[in-house]
């Protein structure tokens, strides 16, 4: 027994891990921030789309991986946030205030939807969230005066900050990256602090947490509203990046692709879903467009391959550790 234990390296002190995480995050952010300097416009645009979709996937991951609430309607909040931000940009202001509107409206919708949904479990939660997504898409399709119906809200003005219009691939990218970092840090903060521990407790045994005195339904609702708000932020960024919002952005397919990104990236990981999102976007938009109509097939194959080869996702690949 003793010899077995001794072959393993001793646990690293927590401080070191924290420092490494901060260093890696800072380095990653810097590499991302410099991307437009060495990437062609199309790569920058693709990367922008990846960031938007990555933030959506990361917010869904808070529900799926941390709270254990697999949602099939998360794009509803994404879509609502996108519509709210696009409407604000068209009719009111093009500043970062559009994002705030997107966040608030998405959070309110999540509060109403969540009040019903979090009381259910398992397959019932799946079906309810699916219904919420479909209802949102249907509403977007029918409410032509506000949403523009099936043609969507088009011609959304480019965002502006400090009097500068951000309509070039690089400037749009930096705008999106800035708020992507804000959203990711917020998600990180919630999932690693005390509330995150409570949420994981609920995932593992809700009954026990309730017995310990936690009001689990209220806490789950809070998590759903928070995840909805971050999805709304991602929606606002979509409106700024794509400058077009259509009912499909709130629909099942978007929800399903976000869930796919979470599964590919690895549930519960903070950054894994962003890598999953990158893979999904590259396969769907860059590769898919050139495959003579076999784009959806490529996405399907990717999903099957990941489930078989990486059942726990990219984030949980363990490189072989050096043992001494």
């Amino acid at each position, binding site marked *: 027994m003793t010899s077995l234990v001794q072959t393993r390296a001793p646990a690293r002190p927590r401080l070191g891990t924290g420092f490494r995480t901060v260093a890696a995050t800072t380095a990653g952010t810097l590499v991302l921030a410099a991307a437009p300097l060495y990437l062609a416009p199309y790569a920058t645009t693709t990367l922008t789309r990846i960031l938007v979709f990555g933030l959506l996937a990361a917010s869904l991951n808070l529900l799926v991986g941390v709270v254990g609430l697999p949602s099939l309607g998360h794009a509803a909040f994404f879509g609502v946030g996108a519509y709210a931000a696009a409407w604000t940009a068209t009719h009111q202001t093009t500043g970062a205030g559009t994002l705030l509107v997107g966040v608030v409206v998405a959070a309110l919708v999540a509060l109403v939807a969540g009040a019903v949904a979090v009381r259910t479990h398992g397959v019932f939660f799946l079906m309810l969230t699916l219904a919420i997504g479909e209802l949102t898409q249907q509403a977007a399709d029918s409410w032509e005066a506000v949403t523009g119906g099936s043609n969507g809200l*088009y011609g959304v003005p480019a965002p502006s900050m400090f009097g500068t219009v951000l309509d070039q691939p690089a400037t749009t990218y930096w705008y999106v990256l800035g708020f992507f970092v804000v959203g990711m840090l917020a998600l990180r903060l919630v999932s690693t602090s005390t509330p995150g521990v409570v949420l994981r407790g609920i995932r593992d045994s809700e009954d026990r947490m309730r017995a310990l005195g936690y009001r689990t339904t209220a806490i789950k609702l809070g998590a759903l509203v928070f995840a909805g708000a971050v999805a709304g932020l991602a929606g606002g960024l979509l409106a700024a990046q794509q400058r077009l919002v259509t009912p499909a952005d709130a629909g099942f397919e978007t929800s399903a692709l976000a869930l796919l990104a979470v599964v590919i990236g690895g549930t519960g990981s903070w950054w894994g879903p962003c890598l999953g999102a990158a893979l999904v976007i590259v396969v769907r938009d860059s590769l898919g*467009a050139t495959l003579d109509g076999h784009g959806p097939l490529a996405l399907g194959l990717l999903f099957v391959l990941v489930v078989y080869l990486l059942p726990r996702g990219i984030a949980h*690949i363990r490189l072989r550790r050096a043992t001494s």
Partner: protein
Amino acid sequence: MTGINRRTFLGLTAGLGVAGLTGCGSSLGATAVSSGTDTVKVGLVIPQAGVYTPLGVDIQRGWDLWLRQHDGRLGGRRVTTVVADEGEGPQTGVPAVQKLLQNDRVDVLVGVVSSATALGVRDLVTSARRLLVIANAGAGAITSTNRSPYIWRTSFTNAQVAAAMGRHLATSGVRRIYAIAPDYVAGTEAIKGFSNAYRAGGGTIVGQSQPPFGKTQDYQPFLSRIQSSGAQGTFCFFGGAESVAFVKQYAQFGLSRTIPLYASGFLVEGGVLGAQGQAADGVLSTLHYTSELDNPANVAFGQAYRAAYDAAPTAYAVQAWDAAEVLSRAIAQADAVDGDSLAGALDSIGVITDSPRGPWSFTQQSPRQNFYLRRVQTRAGAPVNSVVADLGPLDPQS
């Protein structure tokens, strides 16, 4: 150690993946023009996956056939065509256009079936100052309220097609009509275009329905309403699988004998006609084209098309054929392929007299063209839309 290594490794891999796929460089600064003076690069944006795939196939056939008959040249320049999959809607359509403009650096864009995609790429195309010739998307706003000097259309507007039927019915003694179309923008535009023209001619709309788009399988409730409405005829607009379901159920319900079906031509255009079978027999519709048009250009076009693809040509193929035709004339005249030169050349192109659809010209960047009253008949064992009458020209904003 592994914490950082793994993260860095994966980050780099993802970064390299994106970069490797699309080429490096810089996103700052202007995009260079790619083509020389004897070539032109065209991006063909068509649906290759999803419900609109048959339209994409027809558009590509029309485009390829024109090029094959013209030595692969547009206005004297050798053409390179890059095809991108538009998919079912703007979620895939907008990135496809972005890829063609920014990655493939095409000079001209052709295609676009979905109106939402056409409206969504307006700012992209306009800021890139590249010409987009729309070969299908029919929303009125594309060339009116959401107009861009760089976006021209060789197809139709939804309202225009329906207005042709409205104008015709009002003058042919049918006084009371029930109008039905799916609950989405194109359906609403069709009903509005029809109603305006029909009412202007003195007709009355006795009732109207807009069943949920893409979600209605059973039209019985709507058919009962039509039956009890006292209408002398039904005007409808449906496309794809919905047009098959509606036409079949209309016949099964026994309505086609008592209340004739009048339609915006897409109801019975292309592949859906075969799927509708006997149920479509006798349906009257208006469209800017039918394979049965008897003019020299269409006879030659029809023969070449049947020889190449073993299928009858459709309106979608002609829209692409004409897109190639006007582009060729514009390139020959402009002697440059940037958006400003080509848009200027298209503006002065005048009447196209040798199109398979008959003479047409650009009015507000969209065709002013003749519409034909067509009846579904069986000829040589296959259903076709035979020509009943030439209804004369209509403006795009009817």
